[in-house]
């Protein structure tokens, strides 16, 4: 065991960083798209059903198949990392959009009404009232998205995007459980660490007796 670790420590480190990079950039892109989308849906609730429906369908596509679909596309197909990040982004969108939308929709309507009645503009209402009151909710969505991404990113190794999945796939192919664990354990650790950290942040953002309907 000791000698195994010694031989693979550097590789595990590099692959963990790769894994973090894939997951982190995908979650970030998904947040940059998903949070504004969720906010827009609260302004045009008629769109909520179709948009959440599409995000839902994206989530049901088996990940291996989605990686495969993206492979022959121009520009995207040139880089495995690009494919992985786009696919992971697609999976991360649903929890982020859904939680942003539900978080803002769930605010006591009397509070949004008063915000308007005392003379807040739409933007002020969003920034001063709606986002702070739903911040914990939005963060919970980010948290779910991150954990999903950490898990699915292991499969990205199948298209050569790297990450901890590489050790797992190699281990499976050569029936080497040590190699499988060398990929799986750090991946699980990453998921737990991300979950824990974002959970702390969520708790810190929770508003004293939040005005929720």
């Amino acid at each position, binding site marked *: 065991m000791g000698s195994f670790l010694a031989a693979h420590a550097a590789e595990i480190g590099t692959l963990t960083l790769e894994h973090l990079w894939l997951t982190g950039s995908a979650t970030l892109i998904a947040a940059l798209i998903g949070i504004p989308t969720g906010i827009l849906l609260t302004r045009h609730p008629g769109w909520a059903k179709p948009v959440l429906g599409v995000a839902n369908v994206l989530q049901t596509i088996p990940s291996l198949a989605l990686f495969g679909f993206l492979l022959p596309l121009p520009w995207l197909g040139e880089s495995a990392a690009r494919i992985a990040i786009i696919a992971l982004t697609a999976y991360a969108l649903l929890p982020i959009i859904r939680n942003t939308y539900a978080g803002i929709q769930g605010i*006591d309507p*009397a*509070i949004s*009404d*008063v*915000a*308007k*009645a*005392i*003379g*807040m*503009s739409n933007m*002020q209402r969003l920034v*001063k*009232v709606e986002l*702070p*009151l739903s911040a914990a909710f939005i963060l919970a969505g980010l948290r779910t998205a991150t954990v999903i991404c950490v898990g699915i990113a292991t499969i990205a190794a199948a298209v050569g995007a790297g990450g901890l999945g590489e050790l797992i796939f190699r281990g499976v192919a050569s029936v080497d459980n040590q190699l499988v664990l060398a990929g799986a354990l750090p991946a699980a650790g990453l998921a737990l660490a991300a979950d824990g950290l974002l959970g702390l942040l969520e708790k810190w953002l929770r*508003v*004293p*007796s*939040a*005005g929720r309907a």
Partner: protein
Amino acid sequence: MPEPAHNPAIELHDVSFLTQQGRLLLDRIRLAIAAGTTVAILGRSGSGKTTLLRTVNRMIEPTSGEVLVEGKPIGRGDPIALRRSIGYVVQETGLFPHFRIERNIGIVLELQNRPKDEIHARTRELMAMVGLDPKQFAGRYPHQLSGGQRQRVGLARALAADPPILLMDEPFGALDPLTRAEMQDVLRELLARLNKARLPKTVLLVTHDLDEAMYLASRIVLIEEGRVAADLPSANFLDSEIPSVRQYAKAVHRGLDAATTRQA
């Protein structure tokens, strides 16, 4: 209270409001509220009194008719500027749960980008005005206050920018009778004091409580199914022969009547 001979602060010219479902909530309301007076809009739930109030700060746009504030039709101006120039008080739900008391009171000034020291000084002054010790309460959150204290905060917030008009929608509706009476005194004294300081407020008070209307307002407008059923000085309200007024008065005082009859 003598009625000043100013131009009306608020005028409604044949204001009607039809919901999208086709319900007529306001039916050609015609009203003029003299500056510096307190007028109660009385009526049962669903009579349209809140809708009426909300046409004045354009939270509701009338389907037809026109609302004038200080002589100017409000339909053409900027609704945000209008709302900032009108104080607004609702039931206790109106405070922002994530703001400390100080910020809740100063929010209207914050929206106007006033300097921080000015907001700070003004919030302290307002807290003293409504009887809240700034040292004790400025840093608390609304959920740490009692219902009456929260209502004082709501009142202070409405007065922050010193607006000439206050709109109050069942401001004390959620309070127990004793706290309610206490808040009515606070409001009455405050309005009298501001009047003396030459900062008179025109108050439109929506309530379903006849007693509250008579205690606070010099004039009572009774709304029934979106129409003005009666428009009388408070002093003459109980003597009126208008059937809906009689009905309202009877509904309020039946407890006393029943108890006296039982005793006899």
